[in-house]
Structure formats: C-alpha cells, structure tokens
C-alpha cells in the first residue's frame, strides 16, 4: 500500500468519509443561510449580529468553517495529485492551499468572536 503523507487522514477511505460528512455539514449550512436571507429581505444589523451571538449558531458556524477547511483540502488535494505531476510544484500548490484554508478558518473565528 502506498501511503500518502499529504492526504488529510493518510488513508483514502478516511478521506472519503470525512469528505462526505463535511459535505453534509456544508450543505445544511448553505440551506440555512440562503433560506434565512431569502426569508428576511429586510434584515437589520441587530437581527444579523443577534443570530451569530447565539451559541448554537456559533457552534454551527465553527463546524462549517472547519468543514470548509477539510473539505477543500481533500478536494484540492485530489485535483492537485491528478493534474500536477511535478512534486515540487504540487507541494507548493498544496502548501498555498493549506495556508489559505487556515486563514479562512481563523478569519471566520475572528469574525464570529470579534476582537
């Protein structure tokens, strides 16, 4: 068996499963946010910030940010291992993606919890 040091869980089956679980989280969050915005066309700042001050919404959002991180890692890892054959270039691409994901997660946390 070839072990891949750059795959998320070092195992294809594990990555496969994580990709699906995170996909379900992301789809539920998408449905919720789009539904919320469609149903509240006259949304105010107090309403919007109030929503993200609730504990359940912070949990749901943080779960989503982490899902974005792992889901995009596994997806972009698959794509980069398919199309980028040169190891150095692929490593650089994956490193860039990893950094961007990390920035997204921290950015989301900072937006949720303020200063």
């Amino acid at each position, binding site marked *: 068996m070839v072990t891949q040091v750059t795959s998320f869980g070092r195992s294809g089956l594990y990555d496969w499963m994580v990709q699906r679980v995170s996909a379900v989280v992301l789809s539920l969050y998408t449905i919720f946010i789009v539904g919320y915005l469609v149903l509240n066309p006259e*949304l105010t700042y107090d309403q*919007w*910030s109030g929503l993200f001050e609730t504990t359940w919404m912070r949990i749901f959002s943080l779960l989503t940010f982490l899902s974005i991180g792992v889901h995009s890692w596994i*997806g*972009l890892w698959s794509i980069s291992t398919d199309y980028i054959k040169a190891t150095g270039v692929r490593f650089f691409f994956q490193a860039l993606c990893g950094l961007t994901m990390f920035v*997204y997660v921290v950015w*989301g946390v*900072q937006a949720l919890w303020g200063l």
Partner: protein
Amino acid sequence: MVKKVVNKKRPVNLDLASMSMPVTAIVSILHRITGVILFVGLAFLFYAFDLSLDSQAGFDQVVSTLQTNFLVKFIIWGVVSALMYHFVAGVKHLFMDMGYFEELQSGRIAAIANLIVAAILIVLVGVWIW
C-alpha cells in the same frame, strides 16, 4: 527463452482532441471547476461576513454595495452559482455512493438533471441578486 509477444496493432496514442466528452464527464469536471472557484470565492464571502458582523456601518456598507455595485453583484452571483452547482453535483454524488445512477442510461439522465436543476437555481440566484 520466453518469446516477447508484441501486439503491433495496439493503439500507441489516443488523440484526446478527437473524443468528445460525454455529459457525465462534463458534469464531473464542472464539479471540480466549481470547487476551485468556490475556494477562491470564499475570500469574498469571508470578507463580506466579517464586515457585516463588525459594526452597523460595516453591515450597511455590505448591504448597499450588494444593492448598487454591478461588479460586486456579478462576483457574488458567480460565487453563489458555483455553490449551487457544487451543491447539486454533491447531492448527486451522495446518491451515487448509495448505488443509484450507476448505469449508463440512469447516469446520463442524472447528469442531465444535475445540469437542469443547477441552471434553474443559478437563474433564481440571479433574480434574487438583481
């Protein structure tokens, strides 16, 4: 000594340009392309999300920009469209994991349905934004 068997008739090169992609392949590659678009587009979403929760002024700025700036509307439409496509293709993928749409005929129908549903959602998102 073992005689080397070489089949001279085997194809050496496949001319990829001579083959057309079946609809299932188009749906699959679009799933990947929209995934990459989303990864980049997330920067806009995180920026807007951060600004909208930052203060009343930030929230007003996000709302007014989304209502007036054509370029911003177009970008957000593009990102949300990619999200809609990726969402529909992902749901189809989950069904395929469970063993549905794996035959040639059902697979083609599911792929075409994927394109139609995504197109409808993308138009609706456009109507919503404008």
